[in-house]
């Protein structure tokens, strides 16, 4: 038993830097370059088998591994939490296969991989945000035919998306879509902002940082480069609103200006979704 584990451990020493072979990383970087050049356009890439299951962040992981350098400092969060099991495992995989430093602080980090959130702290041009994407196609729920989807994107024919927003408003009085809100990127492609809440959408608009999106199961990457227009789709007379709850404040740090999540099983009990941000406020 011990021998087997040791042998396996020895074997990992021969693995290439950042786990993937150089050709694979190159292929992913090429796709990313195209993605940055065509903001919001979903670029196909040869998604690899990873040591995590597809649907568990394999797309984001492949991007991180393809772009990580020896001097990067890596932060990984899951729902805003650095200590989530998946976040810990992905972070460990990146740092042990590269020897890079890790941090939970945004200002110390350069490469931030995330599922479901953009950190509350301001990010600058030295940051790259990598988002794990389950469903990269914003029109998936509206049109199933792949050929028709490709045509709609090619001709920027998004009337069906508008009809679905219209229907949502008619049936529910408000536009109910919360996470993954569809946005028009650089005035051209309607893009899925993946499961980040509406709260985070305004932060993508003219951001200082580069955002890369990776969908491992769906084999697509896309990007929102810095200083790019990101407009949430909404009617002129129906303003886009972020989530809010009356009187909600974080039970730990007292914040009312961060994205708050309800504590499971309790009513009217809220806490910051970004745990590193919340902890720093409590210590200050």
């Amino acid at each position, binding site marked *: 038993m011990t021998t087997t584990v040791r042998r396996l451990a020895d074997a990992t020493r021969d693995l290439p830097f950042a786990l993937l072979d150089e050709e694979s990383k190159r292929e992913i970087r090429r796709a990313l370059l195209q993605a940055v050049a065509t903001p919001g356009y979903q670029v196909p890439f040869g998604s690899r088998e990873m040591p995590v299951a597809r649907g568990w962040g394999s797309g984001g992981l492949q991007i991180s591994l393809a772009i990580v350098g020896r001097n990067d400092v890596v932060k990984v969060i899951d729902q805003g939490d650095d200590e989530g099991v998946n976040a810990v495992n992905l972070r460990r995989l990146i740092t042990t296969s590269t020897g890079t430093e890790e941090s939970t602080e945004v200002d110390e980090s350069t490469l931030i991989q995330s599922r479901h959130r953009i950190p509350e702290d301001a990010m600058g041009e030295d940051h790259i945000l990598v988002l794990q994407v389950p469903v990269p196609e914003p029109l998936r729920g509206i049109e199933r035919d792949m050929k028709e989807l490709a045509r709609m994107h090619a001709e920027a*024919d998004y009337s069906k998306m508008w009809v679905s927003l*219209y229907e949502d408003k008619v049936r529910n009085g408000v536009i109910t879509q919360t996470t993954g809100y569809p946005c028009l990127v650089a005035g051209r492609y309607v893009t899925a902002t993946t499961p980040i809440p509406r709260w985070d959408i305004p932060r993508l608009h003219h951001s200082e940082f580069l955002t890369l999106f990776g969908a491992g199961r769906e084999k697509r990457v896309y990007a929102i480069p810095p200083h790019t227009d990101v407009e949430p789709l909404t009617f002129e007379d129906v303003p886009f609103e972020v989530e809010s709850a009356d009187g909600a404040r974080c039970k730990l740090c007292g914040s009312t200006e961060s994205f708050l999540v309800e504590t499971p099983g309790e009513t009217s009990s809220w806490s910051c979704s970004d745990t590193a941000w919340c902890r720093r406020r409590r210590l200050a």
Partner: protein
Amino acid sequence: MNHDDLLSVPSPVVSVNGLGKVFGTFDPSMIERTGPTTGTARDAFSGSIVAAWDVNFEVAAGEALGIVGESGSGKSTVLRCIAGDQPATTGDVRFTCHEEGTVNVLRLDPATRRRLRIDKLSVVYQDPAEGLALGVTAGGNIADPLTAAGWRNFGRIRSRAAELLERTEVPLDRMDDIVRNFSGGMRQRVQIARALANNPAIVLLDEPTTGLDASVASGVLDLVRRLLEELDLAVVVVSHDFSVIEMLTQRCIVMQHGRVVEEALTDQLLEDPQHSYSQKLVAAARA
């Protein structure tokens, strides 16, 4: 009245010249092996179907032209080629509302062709499922062409949809119901409302009342006739039903085995059909 007088009008909105559609491989020699003279649209040599050949007509604003014929005569194919639902094999189709009629729309790229369908040309299909999204509300079905044309104001989209539904006599309290829950006649009215959303210059009607029971059909026909009079549209109506053609059109063409066998003023055709096939059709309708 001679041949040319009947097919051309002073200032046409739609001009169709030499329109042809062949399903299967095409070879010019198959033209003489098919048509009314041989009694079939199917070329025995190649197996291809000459669904429509050498179709010519013009339609002016405020007028409706009928295309009559039995099932398989090629009338719907002609309409679908003009609409852009099917690529034509040959021919020249011009709309004065597009580039002043200097462009053969059959040669446009698919994206530009679809663009025409948003604000210049609408089609009302026999089967509402083809023209409507049945899982979407009546208002949403009208919002579709409006948003495609760039409408982004929810309140204005709502009031335009309400205005159109009122005009097509759909009760406003059904505006937010999905179309699947509508009766056949009501679905057709929604389809017509949607077709008029962006004030098109041209409307193509493909058997608009077939499949509706007689009383419902006559209500829909009344509506269509009123809209034709009010809106100055150029209309093509395809139908096998002479009562529809008689009610809506002033001129019509008769098709058999993919060819036009007679063109006439509608009254004249019904009173005194010239071609033997037209005589048969009229006799059958009058029986």
